[in-house]
């Protein structure tokens, strides 16, 4: 029996869903953009890790768009049905960004130490 109306006037669930959406899209764009730009310095070898990062980012977008896959009902507050199931999706998101940061660091330091 899901309450069709959110009870908190601050719409926390909706705001969180939108935050996931824009972060997921930024992740996809970041993976593709950084992959494309580091290809100039590191060569075509970056295509594979960049492709994996972009695929994982698309997975995050898909999982968070369909709320049920990443979210569960709160045990005490049944109308909150979008609480994170656990830390797996944030963990994957962090891993993607750390991977992009390491790739960019490799590219920059390749030019710093010729």
């Amino acid at each position, binding site marked *: *029996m899901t309450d069709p109306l959110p009870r*908190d006037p*601050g719409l*926390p*669930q909706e*705001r*969180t869903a939108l*935050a*996931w959406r*824009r*972060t997921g899209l*930024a*992740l996809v764009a*970041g993976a593709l*953009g*950084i992959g494309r*730009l*580091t290809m*100039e*310095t590191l060569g075509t070898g970056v295509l594979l890790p960049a492709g994996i990062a972009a695929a994982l980012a698309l997975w995050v977008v898909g999982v968070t768009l369909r709320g*049920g896959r990443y*979210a*569960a*009902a*709160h*045990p*005490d*507050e*049944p109308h*909150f*049905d*979008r*609480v*994170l*199931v*656990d*830390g*797996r999706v*944030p*963990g994957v*998101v*962090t891993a993607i*960004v*750390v991977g*992009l*940061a*390491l790739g*960019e*660091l490799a*590219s*920059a*330091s390749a*030019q*710093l130490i010729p």
Partner: protein
Amino acid sequence: MTDQTPRPAYHRLVSSHRWPRSVYGEGVEPDPRFSLANERTFLAWIRTALALLAVAAAVDALPLGIGVRAQALLSTVLALTGLVAAVHAWRDWSRTEQAMRRDLPMPGNAAGIVVTVGVGLAGVVLLVASLMRGLA
């Protein structure tokens, strides 16, 4: 509402399989509004990290007229700052969730200072490199 039947997803929340155990192993489920706010803070840090990395990649790839070495140094500073922001996003999310579950004080924000210094340092590198180009 008198219906006490657990919803289908209920067991997923109380299960001991929730990862990581350091967060979910102990404590009680906090107010969902606080968990959601913690999620949004995590996502804001992730977007900050992505923005820093996007600038680092752009500075690395596009000619700015300040020299290749200066651009590489600028890019390195920005990428390191982005890395700190990303690691902080995860650490802060997990430690905050842990603190809320166990009714402990919230973790501090030491990484905020590191990110502030990183962005400031990038500004100094850009300023010095531009001035040196201008005077040369």
